[in-house]
Protein backbone atom coordinates (compact mmCIF):
# COMPACT_ATOMS: atom_id res chain seq x y z
CA UNK A 1 0.00 0.00 0.00
CA UNK A 2 1.36 3.38 -0.99
CA UNK A 3 1.29 6.27 1.52
CA UNK A 4 -1.32 7.92 -0.68
CA UNK A 5 -3.57 4.87 -0.49
CA UNK A 6 -3.09 4.77 3.26
CA UNK A 7 -4.25 8.33 3.81
CA UNK A 8 -7.16 7.69 1.45
CA UNK A 9 -8.39 4.77 3.52
CA UNK A 10 -7.79 6.79 6.69
CA UNK A 11 -10.41 9.38 5.81
CA UNK A 12 -13.50 7.14 6.09
CA UNK A 13 -11.99 5.57 9.21
CA UNK A 14 -11.71 8.98 10.85
CA UNK A 15 -15.30 9.70 9.81
CA UNK A 16 -16.54 6.48 11.40
CA UNK A 17 -14.67 7.17 14.64
CA UNK A 18 -16.16 10.69 14.85
CA UNK A 19 -19.70 9.42 14.23
CA UNK A 20 -19.32 6.65 16.84
CA UNK A 21 -17.95 9.14 19.37
CA UNK A 22 -20.88 11.53 18.82
CA UNK A 23 -23.29 8.62 19.08
CA UNK A 24 -21.69 7.45 22.31
CA UNK A 25 -21.80 10.99 23.72
CA UNK A 26 -25.47 11.36 22.80
CA UNK A 27 -26.51 8.11 24.53
CA UNK A 28 -24.61 9.18 27.65
CA UNK A 29 -26.01 12.69 27.79
CA UNK A 30 -29.60 11.95 26.77
CA UNK A 31 -30.04 8.82 28.87
CA UNK A 32 -32.01 7.29 25.98
CA UNK A 33 -33.26 3.71 26.59
CA UNK A 34 -30.91 1.05 25.13
CA UNK A 35 -33.95 -0.60 23.54
CA UNK A 36 -34.41 2.46 21.33
CA UNK A 37 -30.77 3.29 20.78
CA UNK A 38 -28.00 1.37 22.51
CA UNK A 39 -24.58 2.98 22.67
CA UNK A 40 -21.84 1.83 20.29
CA UNK A 41 -19.81 0.50 23.22
CA UNK A 42 -22.73 -1.58 24.40
CA UNK A 43 -23.34 -2.95 20.90
CA UNK A 44 -19.64 -3.69 20.63
CA UNK A 45 -19.47 -5.55 23.87
CA UNK A 46 -22.62 -7.60 23.10
CA UNK A 47 -21.24 -8.36 19.62
CA UNK A 48 -18.20 -9.89 21.30
CA UNK A 49 -19.70 -11.36 24.45
CA UNK A 50 -22.48 -13.21 22.68
CA UNK A 51 -20.38 -14.36 19.74
CA UNK A 52 -21.47 -17.98 20.28
CA UNK A 53 -25.08 -17.16 19.61
CA UNK A 54 -24.23 -14.68 16.85
CA UNK A 55 -21.91 -17.09 15.08
CA UNK A 56 -24.49 -19.83 15.32
CA UNK A 57 -27.07 -17.54 13.73
CA UNK A 58 -24.65 -16.28 11.09
CA UNK A 59 -24.21 -19.76 9.69
CA UNK A 60 -27.73 -20.21 8.22
CA UNK A 61 -27.72 -16.67 6.75
CA UNK A 62 -24.29 -17.34 5.26
CA UNK A 63 -25.44 -20.60 3.69
CA UNK A 64 -28.62 -19.05 2.28
CA UNK A 65 -26.69 -16.15 0.80
CA UNK A 66 -23.87 -18.15 -0.70
CA UNK A 67 -26.08 -20.87 -2.14
CA UNK A 68 -28.54 -18.32 -3.52
CA UNK A 69 -25.67 -16.41 -5.09
CA UNK A 70 -24.06 -19.58 -6.47
CA UNK A 71 -27.36 -20.60 -8.02
CA UNK A 72 -27.75 -17.14 -9.53
CA UNK A 73 -24.29 -17.49 -11.07
CA UNK A 74 -25.00 -21.02 -12.26
CA UNK A 75 -28.23 -20.06 -13.99
CA UNK A 76 -27.51 -16.40 -14.71
CA UNK A 77 -24.30 -16.80 -16.69
CA UNK A 78 -25.61 -19.42 -19.16
CA UNK A 79 -28.77 -17.37 -19.57
CA UNK A 80 -26.68 -14.29 -20.30
CA UNK A 81 -24.79 -16.33 -22.90
CA UNK A 82 -28.07 -17.14 -24.62
CA UNK A 83 -29.24 -13.54 -24.45
CA UNK A 84 -25.93 -12.25 -25.80
CA UNK A 85 -25.54 -14.77 -28.60
CA UNK A 86 -29.02 -15.37 -29.88
CA UNK A 87 -31.27 -12.68 -31.29
CA UNK A 88 -34.32 -14.78 -30.51
CA UNK A 89 -33.42 -15.20 -26.85
CA UNK A 90 -32.52 -11.55 -26.65
CA UNK A 91 -35.93 -10.56 -28.00
CA UNK A 92 -37.91 -13.08 -25.97
CA UNK A 93 -36.02 -13.38 -22.70
CA UNK A 94 -34.67 -9.94 -22.04
CA UNK A 95 -38.01 -8.11 -21.67
CA UNK A 96 -39.26 -10.90 -19.43
CA UNK A 97 -36.17 -10.59 -17.27
CA UNK A 98 -36.60 -6.85 -16.94
CA UNK A 99 -40.31 -7.28 -16.18
CA UNK A 100 -39.69 -9.83 -13.42
CA UNK A 101 -37.04 -7.57 -12.00
CA UNK A 102 -39.58 -4.83 -11.50
CA UNK A 103 -41.56 -7.03 -9.08
CA UNK A 104 -40.60 -5.94 -5.56
CA UNK A 105 -38.88 -8.88 -3.93
CA UNK A 106 -40.32 -8.00 -0.53
CA UNK A 107 -43.78 -8.37 -2.03
CA UNK A 108 -43.21 -11.87 -3.35
CA UNK A 109 -41.41 -13.05 -0.24
CA UNK A 110 -44.62 -14.31 1.42
CA UNK A 111 -45.51 -16.29 -1.71
CA UNK A 112 -42.03 -17.78 -1.87
CA UNK A 113 -42.48 -18.78 1.76
CA UNK A 114 -45.70 -20.60 0.91
CA UNK A 115 -43.92 -22.46 -1.87
CA UNK A 116 -40.69 -23.33 -0.10
CA UNK A 117 -41.60 -23.37 3.58
CA UNK A 118 -39.97 -21.93 6.66
CA UNK A 119 -36.63 -23.66 6.10
CA UNK A 120 -33.50 -22.61 4.30
CA UNK A 121 -34.80 -23.07 0.76
CA UNK A 122 -37.19 -20.09 0.80
CA UNK A 123 -34.33 -17.77 1.81
CA UNK A 124 -32.07 -19.32 -0.74
CA UNK A 125 -34.75 -18.69 -3.37
CA UNK A 126 -35.05 -15.04 -2.40
CA UNK A 127 -31.28 -14.55 -2.35
CA UNK A 128 -31.20 -16.14 -5.78
CA UNK A 129 -33.95 -13.88 -7.10
CA UNK A 130 -32.23 -10.64 -6.13
CA UNK A 131 -28.72 -11.79 -7.11
CA UNK A 132 -29.80 -13.14 -10.45
CA UNK A 133 -30.56 -9.92 -12.29
CA UNK A 134 -27.27 -8.02 -11.95
CA UNK A 135 -25.39 -11.17 -12.91
CA UNK A 136 -27.41 -11.71 -16.09
CA UNK A 137 -27.36 -8.06 -17.11
CA UNK A 138 -23.66 -7.52 -16.49
CA UNK A 139 -22.58 -10.80 -18.04
CA UNK A 140 -24.67 -10.16 -21.15
CA UNK A 141 -23.27 -6.63 -21.39
CA UNK A 142 -19.74 -8.00 -21.02
CA UNK A 143 -20.22 -10.62 -23.70
CA UNK A 144 -21.67 -8.06 -26.07
CA UNK A 145 -18.86 -5.63 -25.36
CA UNK A 146 -16.21 -8.04 -26.66
CA UNK A 147 -13.92 -5.87 -28.81
CA UNK A 148 -14.92 -6.43 -32.46
CA UNK A 149 -11.25 -6.48 -33.43
CA UNK A 150 -10.69 -9.58 -31.31
CA UNK A 151 -13.72 -11.28 -32.81
CA UNK A 152 -12.45 -10.49 -36.30
CA UNK A 153 -9.02 -11.85 -35.38
CA UNK A 154 -10.56 -15.12 -34.17
CA UNK A 155 -12.73 -15.26 -37.28
CA UNK A 156 -9.73 -14.70 -39.55
CA UNK A 157 -8.01 -17.65 -37.87
CA UNK A 158 -11.01 -19.90 -38.52
CA UNK A 159 -11.81 -20.26 -34.82
CA UNK A 160 -14.85 -22.36 -34.00
CA UNK A 161 -17.80 -20.83 -32.14
CA UNK A 162 -16.71 -22.75 -29.08
CA UNK A 163 -13.20 -21.34 -29.28
CA UNK A 164 -14.52 -17.83 -29.83
CA UNK A 165 -16.70 -18.21 -26.76
CA UNK A 166 -14.16 -19.69 -24.38
CA UNK A 167 -11.02 -17.96 -25.61
CA UNK A 168 -12.36 -14.53 -26.52
CA UNK A 169 -15.85 -13.67 -25.29
CA UNK A 170 -15.65 -15.18 -21.84
CA UNK A 171 -12.31 -13.65 -20.81
CA UNK A 172 -13.45 -10.31 -22.23
CA UNK A 173 -16.63 -10.50 -20.14
CA UNK A 174 -14.83 -11.48 -16.94
CA UNK A 175 -14.47 -7.95 -15.50
CA UNK A 176 -18.19 -7.40 -16.10
CA UNK A 177 -19.09 -10.72 -14.47
CA UNK A 178 -17.13 -9.76 -11.39
CA UNK A 179 -18.71 -6.30 -11.26
CA UNK A 180 -22.15 -7.95 -11.40
CA UNK A 181 -21.12 -10.55 -8.81
CA UNK A 182 -20.04 -7.90 -6.32
CA UNK A 183 -23.43 -6.21 -6.56
CA UNK A 184 -25.17 -9.58 -6.52
CA UNK A 185 -23.50 -10.90 -3.38
CA UNK A 186 -24.45 -7.85 -1.31
CA UNK A 187 -28.00 -8.08 -2.67
CA UNK A 188 -28.08 -11.79 -1.86
CA UNK A 189 -27.49 -11.00 1.83
CA UNK A 190 -30.46 -8.64 1.71
CA UNK A 191 -32.56 -11.30 -0.05
CA UNK A 192 -31.76 -13.86 2.62
CA UNK A 193 -32.64 -11.41 5.41
CA UNK A 194 -35.94 -10.50 3.76
CA UNK A 195 -36.73 -14.21 3.70
CA UNK A 196 -35.86 -14.52 7.36
CA UNK A 197 -38.04 -11.53 8.24
CA UNK A 198 -41.06 -12.99 6.53
CA UNK A 199 -40.81 -16.30 8.28
CA UNK A 200 -37.91 -18.30 9.64
CA UNK A 201 -36.49 -20.28 12.51
CA UNK A 202 -32.86 -19.21 12.36
CA UNK A 203 -30.43 -16.72 10.94
CA UNK A 204 -29.21 -13.20 11.74
CA UNK A 205 -32.39 -11.61 10.34
CA UNK A 206 -34.40 -13.92 12.54
CA UNK A 207 -32.22 -12.92 15.49
CA UNK A 208 -32.87 -9.20 14.87
CA UNK A 209 -36.61 -9.88 15.05
CA UNK A 210 -36.33 -12.18 18.08
CA UNK A 211 -34.12 -9.74 20.03
CA UNK A 212 -36.48 -6.89 19.20
CA UNK A 213 -39.50 -8.77 20.44
CA UNK A 214 -37.63 -9.54 23.66
CA UNK A 215 -36.82 -5.83 23.99
CA UNK A 216 -33.09 -6.67 23.75
CA UNK A 217 -31.96 -3.65 21.74
CA UNK A 218 -28.22 -4.23 22.05
CA UNK A 219 -28.53 -7.80 20.74
CA UNK A 220 -30.63 -6.67 17.78
CA UNK A 221 -27.96 -4.10 16.95
CA UNK A 222 -25.18 -6.63 17.45
CA UNK A 223 -26.93 -8.91 14.95
CA UNK A 224 -26.97 -5.97 12.54
CA UNK A 225 -23.25 -5.48 13.02
CA UNK A 226 -22.60 -9.13 12.28
CA UNK A 227 -24.86 -8.96 9.27
CA UNK A 228 -22.95 -6.08 7.73
CA UNK A 229 -19.67 -7.81 8.59
CA UNK A 230 -20.97 -10.85 6.70
CA UNK A 231 -21.82 -8.68 3.71
CA UNK A 232 -18.41 -7.03 3.70
CA UNK A 233 -16.66 -10.37 4.07
CA UNK A 234 -18.53 -11.93 1.17
CA UNK A 235 -17.85 -8.87 -0.98
CA UNK A 236 -14.17 -9.11 -0.09
CA UNK A 237 -14.18 -12.80 -0.99
CA UNK A 238 -15.45 -11.99 -4.49
CA UNK A 239 -12.87 -9.22 -4.80
CA UNK A 240 -10.18 -11.71 -3.80
CA UNK A 241 -11.29 -14.25 -6.42
CA UNK A 242 -11.29 -11.45 -8.97
CA UNK A 243 -7.78 -10.46 -7.95
CA UNK A 244 -6.61 -14.05 -8.31
CA UNK A 245 -8.34 -14.71 -11.61
CA UNK A 246 -7.37 -11.49 -13.37
CA UNK A 247 -3.63 -11.02 -12.86
CA UNK A 248 -3.46 -8.78 -15.95
CA UNK A 249 -5.56 -6.16 -14.19
CA UNK A 250 -3.00 -5.77 -11.46
CA UNK A 251 -0.10 -5.81 -13.91
CA UNK A 252 -1.41 -2.77 -15.72
CA UNK A 253 -1.81 -0.61 -12.64
CA UNK A 254 1.82 0.09 -11.91
Amino acid at each position, binding site marked *: MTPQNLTRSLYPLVGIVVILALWQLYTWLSGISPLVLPSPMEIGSVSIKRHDLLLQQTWPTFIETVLGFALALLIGVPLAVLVANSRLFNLVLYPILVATQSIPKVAIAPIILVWFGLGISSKLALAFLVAFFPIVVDTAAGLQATPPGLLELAHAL*CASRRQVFF*KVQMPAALPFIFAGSKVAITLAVIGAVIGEFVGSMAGLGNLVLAANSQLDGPLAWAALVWLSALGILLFAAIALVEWLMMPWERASQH
Partner: protein
Amino acid sequence: MIDSTAPRGPEQPRLGGATIVSPADSPRRAFGRFENVHKAFKRPGQTPLTAIETVTFDLQSGQLISLLGPSGCGKTTFLRIAAGLIPKTSGIVEINGAEVERPQPDFGMVFQQPNLMPWRTVLKNVLFPVEIQGDADGRAVQRAAELLSLVGLSGFEHSYPAQLSGGMQQRVALCRALVHQPKLLLMDEPFGALDELTRMEMQDLLLDIRAKTGATLMLVTHSISEAVYLSDRVAVFSPRPARIADVIAVDLPYPRRPEARYAPEFTELEHRASRALGITR
Protein backbone atom coordinates in the same frame (compact mmCIF):
# COMPACT_ATOMS: atom_id res chain seq x y z
CA MET B 1 18.52 -2.80 -33.56
CA ILE B 2 18.06 -5.43 -36.17
CA ASP B 3 20.26 -4.83 -39.17
CA SER B 4 18.44 -5.75 -42.32
CA THR B 5 21.65 -5.52 -44.29
CA ALA B 6 23.44 -8.27 -42.40
CA PRO B 7 24.60 -11.05 -44.70
CA ARG B 8 22.42 -14.12 -44.49
CA GLY B 9 24.44 -17.26 -44.91
CA PRO B 10 23.26 -20.81 -44.40
CA GLU B 11 24.41 -20.60 -40.78
CA GLN B 12 21.58 -18.12 -40.09
CA PRO B 13 18.99 -19.55 -37.69
CA ARG B 14 15.94 -20.74 -39.51
CA LEU B 15 12.65 -19.42 -38.37
CA GLY B 16 11.20 -22.54 -36.80
CA GLY B 17 11.76 -24.52 -39.97
CA ALA B 18 10.38 -21.92 -42.35
CA THR B 19 12.17 -21.94 -45.64
CA ILE B 20 14.41 -18.97 -45.96
CA VAL B 21 13.96 -17.50 -49.40
CA SER B 22 15.48 -14.27 -50.43
CA PRO B 23 12.95 -12.41 -52.53
CA ALA B 24 15.46 -11.96 -55.30
CA ASP B 25 15.76 -15.64 -56.14
CA SER B 26 12.22 -16.79 -55.37
CA PRO B 27 10.29 -18.08 -58.35
CA ARG B 28 7.91 -15.43 -59.65
CA ARG B 29 4.83 -17.52 -60.28
CA ALA B 30 1.44 -15.95 -59.78
CA PHE B 31 0.44 -16.70 -56.25
CA GLY B 32 -2.68 -14.58 -56.08
CA ARG B 33 -5.01 -13.44 -58.79
CA PHE B 34 -7.50 -10.60 -58.38
CA GLU B 35 -9.71 -10.05 -61.37
CA ASN B 36 -12.44 -7.43 -61.68
CA VAL B 37 -13.05 -7.54 -57.96
CA HIS B 38 -16.16 -5.52 -57.26
CA LYS B 39 -17.78 -4.76 -53.95
CA ALA B 40 -21.02 -2.95 -53.15
CA PHE B 41 -22.27 -2.77 -49.57
CA LYS B 42 -26.00 -3.24 -49.19
CA ARG B 43 -27.62 -0.44 -47.23
CA PRO B 44 -31.13 -0.85 -45.86
CA GLY B 45 -33.51 1.59 -47.53
CA GLN B 46 -30.80 3.08 -49.77
CA THR B 47 -29.00 2.25 -52.96
CA PRO B 48 -25.97 0.00 -52.37
CA LEU B 49 -22.69 1.77 -51.67
CA THR B 50 -20.03 0.86 -54.19
CA ALA B 51 -16.76 0.59 -52.28
CA ILE B 52 -14.71 -1.07 -55.01
CA GLU B 53 -15.53 -0.49 -58.67
CA THR B 54 -13.10 -2.92 -60.21
CA VAL B 55 -9.67 -4.03 -59.11
CA THR B 56 -7.39 -6.33 -61.09
CA PHE B 57 -3.80 -7.30 -60.35
CA ASP B 58 -1.58 -10.30 -59.74
CA LEU B 59 0.32 -11.18 -56.62
CA GLN B 60 3.64 -12.97 -57.12
CA SER B 61 4.90 -15.51 -54.65
CA GLY B 62 7.34 -14.02 -52.17
CA GLN B 63 6.56 -10.49 -53.28
CA LEU B 64 5.49 -7.58 -51.20
CA ILE B 65 2.73 -5.51 -52.74
CA SER B 66 1.39 -2.33 -51.20
CA LEU B 67 -2.11 -1.06 -51.71
CA LEU B 68 -1.85 2.71 -51.64
CA GLY B 69 -4.85 4.98 -51.77
CA PRO B 70 -6.73 7.88 -50.23
CA SER B 71 -8.78 7.44 -47.08
CA GLY B 72 -12.10 5.71 -47.56
CA CYS B 73 -11.28 4.42 -51.05
CA GLY B 74 -11.84 0.77 -50.19
CA LYS B 75 -8.40 -0.55 -49.22
CA THR B 76 -9.53 -2.19 -46.00
CA THR B 77 -12.55 -3.57 -47.79
CA PHE B 78 -10.31 -5.08 -50.44
CA LEU B 79 -7.96 -6.59 -47.86
CA ARG B 80 -10.87 -8.10 -45.96
CA ILE B 81 -12.17 -9.64 -49.17
CA ALA B 82 -8.72 -11.10 -49.85
CA ALA B 83 -8.68 -12.45 -46.29
CA GLY B 84 -12.05 -14.12 -46.83
CA LEU B 85 -13.58 -12.07 -44.03
CA ILE B 86 -16.28 -10.51 -46.18
CA PRO B 87 -17.72 -11.63 -49.54
CA LYS B 88 -17.03 -9.80 -52.77
CA THR B 89 -19.98 -8.82 -54.94
CA SER B 90 -18.37 -10.10 -58.13
CA GLY B 91 -14.98 -10.91 -59.64
CA ILE B 92 -12.31 -13.47 -58.95
CA VAL B 93 -10.17 -13.73 -55.83
CA GLU B 94 -7.86 -16.69 -56.19
CA ILE B 95 -4.96 -17.32 -53.86
CA ASN B 96 -2.65 -20.26 -53.98
CA GLY B 97 -4.83 -21.88 -56.62
CA ALA B 98 -8.09 -21.72 -54.72
CA GLU B 99 -11.00 -19.29 -54.68
CA VAL B 100 -11.09 -17.40 -51.38
CA GLU B 101 -14.59 -17.51 -49.94
CA ARG B 102 -13.90 -17.77 -46.24
CA PRO B 103 -10.98 -17.12 -43.88
CA GLN B 104 -7.97 -19.31 -44.55
CA PRO B 105 -5.97 -20.89 -41.75
CA ASP B 106 -2.72 -20.34 -43.64
CA PHE B 107 -3.15 -16.57 -43.89
CA GLY B 108 -1.76 -14.20 -41.31
CA MET B 109 -3.34 -10.88 -40.56
CA VAL B 110 -2.11 -7.67 -38.94
CA PHE B 111 -4.76 -5.10 -38.23
CA GLN B 112 -4.51 -1.35 -37.90
CA GLN B 113 -4.78 -1.79 -34.12
CA PRO B 114 -2.64 -4.38 -32.31
CA ASN B 115 -5.82 -6.21 -31.18
CA LEU B 116 -4.00 -8.01 -28.38
CA MET B 117 -5.89 -9.82 -25.67
CA PRO B 118 -5.28 -7.97 -22.42
CA TRP B 119 -5.70 -11.18 -20.42
CA ARG B 120 -2.94 -13.02 -22.25
CA THR B 121 0.76 -12.53 -21.79
CA VAL B 122 2.83 -11.50 -24.79
CA LEU B 123 3.88 -15.09 -25.47
CA LYS B 124 0.32 -16.40 -25.11
CA ASN B 125 -0.91 -13.71 -27.46
CA VAL B 126 1.63 -14.73 -30.06
CA LEU B 127 0.62 -18.38 -29.62
CA PHE B 128 -3.08 -17.65 -30.11
CA PRO B 129 -3.21 -18.68 -33.82
CA VAL B 130 -1.49 -22.03 -33.26
CA GLU B 131 -3.69 -22.64 -30.26
CA ILE B 132 -6.79 -22.06 -32.37
CA GLN B 133 -5.42 -24.37 -35.03
CA GLY B 134 -4.60 -27.02 -32.47
CA ASP B 135 -0.85 -27.22 -32.83
CA ALA B 136 0.55 -25.20 -29.97
CA ASP B 137 3.36 -27.66 -29.38
CA GLY B 138 6.89 -27.11 -28.17
CA ARG B 139 8.04 -26.18 -31.65
CA ALA B 140 5.42 -23.47 -31.84
CA VAL B 141 6.52 -22.09 -28.50
CA GLN B 142 10.10 -22.04 -29.71
CA ARG B 143 9.05 -20.33 -32.92
CA ALA B 144 7.13 -17.72 -30.94
CA ALA B 145 10.12 -17.06 -28.74
CA GLU B 146 12.35 -16.73 -31.81
CA LEU B 147 9.96 -14.28 -33.43
CA LEU B 148 9.79 -12.23 -30.26
CA SER B 149 13.54 -12.04 -30.07
CA LEU B 150 13.66 -11.12 -33.75
CA VAL B 151 11.47 -8.08 -33.07
CA GLY B 152 13.50 -7.20 -29.99
CA LEU B 153 11.00 -8.31 -27.38
CA SER B 154 13.02 -10.98 -25.61
CA GLY B 155 12.38 -10.70 -21.91
CA PHE B 156 8.82 -9.47 -22.39
CA GLU B 157 7.32 -12.93 -23.01
CA HIS B 158 5.49 -12.90 -19.71
CA SER B 159 4.46 -9.25 -19.69
CA TYR B 160 0.88 -8.23 -20.34
CA PRO B 161 -0.01 -6.01 -23.32
CA ALA B 162 -0.95 -3.13 -21.01
CA GLN B 163 2.67 -3.04 -19.89
CA LEU B 164 3.94 -2.40 -23.43
CA SER B 165 4.14 0.71 -25.57
CA GLY B 166 2.06 1.01 -28.73
CA GLY B 167 5.00 0.13 -30.96
CA MET B 168 5.86 -2.92 -28.85
CA GLN B 169 2.24 -4.06 -29.02
CA GLN B 170 2.25 -3.80 -32.79
CA ARG B 171 5.45 -5.88 -32.87
CA VAL B 172 3.68 -8.54 -30.83
CA ALA B 173 0.83 -8.43 -33.33
CA LEU B 174 3.37 -8.95 -36.11
CA CYS B 175 4.79 -12.03 -34.35
CA ARG B 176 1.29 -13.36 -33.85
CA ALA B 177 0.57 -13.00 -37.55
CA LEU B 178 3.68 -15.01 -38.39
CA VAL B 179 3.69 -17.76 -35.77
CA HIS B 180 1.66 -20.23 -37.80
CA GLN B 181 3.95 -19.69 -40.77
CA PRO B 182 1.33 -18.24 -43.07
CA LYS B 183 1.69 -18.40 -46.83
CA LEU B 184 0.24 -14.93 -47.12
CA LEU B 185 0.53 -12.04 -44.72
CA LEU B 186 -2.15 -9.36 -44.97
CA MET B 187 -1.51 -6.09 -43.21
CA ASP B 188 -3.90 -3.19 -42.84
CA GLU B 189 -1.97 0.00 -42.13
CA PRO B 190 0.03 -1.93 -39.56
CA PHE B 191 2.17 1.05 -38.62
CA GLY B 192 -0.43 3.74 -39.07
CA ALA B 193 -0.79 4.44 -35.37
CA LEU B 194 2.94 4.72 -34.71
CA ASP B 195 5.19 7.73 -34.59
CA GLU B 196 7.55 8.39 -37.49
CA LEU B 197 10.67 6.93 -35.83
CA THR B 198 9.05 3.75 -34.60
CA ARG B 199 7.37 3.45 -37.94
CA MET B 200 10.66 3.48 -39.80
CA GLU B 201 12.14 0.93 -37.41
CA MET B 202 9.14 -1.30 -37.95
CA GLN B 203 9.49 -1.00 -41.70
CA ASP B 204 13.08 -2.27 -41.55
CA LEU B 205 11.95 -4.99 -39.22
CA LEU B 206 9.25 -6.06 -41.63
CA LEU B 207 11.72 -6.23 -44.50
CA ASP B 208 14.02 -8.30 -42.34
CA ILE B 209 11.28 -10.71 -41.37
CA ARG B 210 10.14 -10.97 -44.93
CA ALA B 211 13.66 -11.84 -46.06
CA LYS B 212 13.87 -14.54 -43.40
CA THR B 213 10.48 -16.15 -43.93
CA GLY B 214 9.92 -15.67 -47.63
CA ALA B 215 6.28 -14.86 -46.94
CA THR B 216 4.14 -13.19 -49.55
CA LEU B 217 2.84 -9.89 -48.29
CA MET B 218 0.01 -7.55 -49.07
CA LEU B 219 0.10 -4.31 -47.16
CA VAL B 220 -2.36 -1.44 -47.04
CA THR B 221 -0.93 2.00 -46.46
CA HIS B 222 -1.67 5.71 -46.66
CA SER B 223 1.95 6.59 -46.89
CA ILE B 224 3.64 7.01 -50.25
CA SER B 225 7.14 6.67 -48.86
CA GLU B 226 6.23 3.58 -46.86
CA ALA B 227 4.75 1.96 -49.96
CA VAL B 228 7.82 2.70 -52.06
CA TYR B 229 10.33 1.76 -49.37
CA LEU B 230 8.80 -1.62 -48.62
CA SER B 231 7.35 -2.91 -51.83
CA ASP B 232 8.22 -4.86 -54.89
CA ARG B 233 5.14 -3.33 -56.40
CA VAL B 234 2.70 -0.60 -55.42
CA ALA B 235 -0.93 -0.81 -56.50
CA VAL B 236 -2.36 2.70 -56.35
CA PHE B 237 -6.11 2.86 -55.75
CA SER B 238 -8.27 5.70 -57.03
CA PRO B 239 -10.69 7.46 -54.67
CA ARG B 240 -13.85 5.50 -53.89
CA PRO B 241 -15.17 3.56 -55.71
CA ALA B 242 -11.71 2.05 -56.08
CA ARG B 243 -10.07 1.30 -59.39
CA ILE B 244 -6.42 0.65 -60.01
CA ALA B 245 -4.90 4.02 -60.90
CA ASP B 246 -1.41 2.63 -61.43
CA VAL B 247 0.74 -0.37 -60.62
CA ILE B 248 4.28 0.73 -59.93
CA ALA B 249 7.18 -1.73 -60.02
CA VAL B 250 9.77 -0.67 -57.48
CA ASP B 251 13.07 -1.86 -58.88
CA LEU B 252 15.20 -0.81 -55.95
CA PRO B 253 17.40 -3.67 -54.78
CA TYR B 254 16.81 -5.47 -51.48
CA PRO B 255 18.01 -5.38 -48.77
CA ARG B 256 16.96 -1.76 -48.59
CA ARG B 257 18.55 0.61 -46.16
CA PRO B 258 17.12 3.85 -44.80
CA GLU B 259 19.56 5.74 -47.06
CA ALA B 260 17.59 4.48 -50.03
CA ARG B 261 14.84 6.92 -49.09
CA TYR B 262 17.01 9.80 -50.28
CA ALA B 263 18.08 8.34 -53.61
CA PRO B 264 16.81 10.13 -56.74
CA GLU B 265 15.16 6.90 -58.00
CA PHE B 266 13.23 6.69 -54.76
CA THR B 267 11.96 10.24 -55.13
CA GLU B 268 11.06 9.55 -58.72
CA LEU B 269 8.94 6.56 -57.68
CA GLU B 270 7.31 8.60 -54.93
CA HIS B 271 6.48 11.23 -57.48
CA ARG B 272 4.94 8.69 -59.79
CA ALA B 273 2.78 7.38 -56.95
CA SER B 274 1.69 10.85 -56.00
CA ARG B 275 0.75 11.54 -59.62
CA ALA B 276 -1.33 8.36 -59.65
CA LEU B 277 -3.04 9.60 -56.50
CA GLY B 278 -3.75 12.92 -58.20
CA ILE B 279 -1.73 14.89 -55.66
CA THR B 280 0.85 16.16 -58.15
CA ARG B 281 0.76 16.44 -61.90
